[in-house]
């Protein structure tokens, strides 16, 4: 076992603190831009999808998930690129450290403070209502679905499940996604 791993009693306390956050939700967060044709074109190209499927002005089912980007005046994550530990993701999640101790998984949700340094994408559970359309504005409401402590092959893992609900500006549901984030 890795000597740097936190002791089990610490993780037991941490998971207890995290479980108090279940149900915490943020206010609606609007994507910086509306569904925009050039973004959709690049998305379809990058996923090697068939453009003919979207000739009616709708966009790929999962497109809204990726609409929540850095705003025009927000800090540049690449400002830290000269740091030897720059990984390109911690800077986006925390905006301040590489230690993996406090992570803001969604704007407006309480930070997840876990003494585990690695973060993995564990998977998703989706419910789909309809495809977004070019020109629509999209917002997201996020909440903590649950937290769990598991023993993995390399040591303890903390699983964080975040529920993201995506809507159009006139409150029409587009999709729900429960993302599993693995901290280890």
């Amino acid at each position, binding site marked *: 076992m890795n000597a740097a791993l936190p002791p089990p009693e610490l993780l037991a306390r941490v998971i207890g603190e995290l479980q108090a956050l279940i149900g915490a939700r943020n206010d609606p967060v609007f994507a910086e831009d509306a569904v925009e044709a050039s973004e959709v074109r690049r998305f379809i190209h990058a996923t090697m999808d068939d453009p003919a499927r979207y000739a009616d002005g709708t966009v790929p089912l999962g497109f809204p998930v990726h609409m929540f980007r850095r705003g025009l005046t927000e800090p540049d994550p690449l400002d830290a690129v000269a740091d030897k530990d720059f990984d*390109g993701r911690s800077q986006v999640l925390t905006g301040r450290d590489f230690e993996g101790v406090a992570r803001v998984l969604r704007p407006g949700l309480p930070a997840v403070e876990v003494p585990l340094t690695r973060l993995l994408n564990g998977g998703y559970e989706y419910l789909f209502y309809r495809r977004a359309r070019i020109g629509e504005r999209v917002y997201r409401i996020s909440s903590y679905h649950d937290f769990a402590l598991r023993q993995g092959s390399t040591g303890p893992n903390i699983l964080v499940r975040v529920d993201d609900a995506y809507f159009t500006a006139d409150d029409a549901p587009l999709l729900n996604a429960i993302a599993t984030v693995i901290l280890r």
Partner: protein
Amino acid sequence: MIAFEDIRPNQPIPDLVRGPLGPPHLMRWSSAIENWHRIHYDRDYATGHDGLPDIVINGSWKQHLLMQLLGRWTGDTGWLAQLRLQFRKMNVAGETLTAWGRVTGTDTRGGYGLVHLEVGIRNENGVESTPGTAEVVLPFRGGPAVPCPFTQDLLAP
């Protein structure tokens, strides 16, 4: 146009094959979604710092492969209502990925057909990386069209 009457138990759906997926494909995806995570485009960092075998194909990309697989199969008449997937193994640059699906069961709900599927992504060596399940709603031939927007309540028993 696919209808519920066309579905058979254990029926496979048409595979979706993509690859070999090289650094340009990964760079294009990272750029399209502005993902700066270095393990997806910086080989020296991925192998040297993180000890990975190569730059990693994004899980976020793989999930869309499964959505695409199911969306192409259902066409305009059906609806991918639910999808669950897990990233169990990584895939790296150079691999060819095959998204696949198989019917595991059927039901009817409120005048529509409900198809349960097992789905996944395997590489050219047959290694499965992304197991999942899905629920697809299909119309009966001559029956009402699947509603859009879709109502998840339709799936309730």
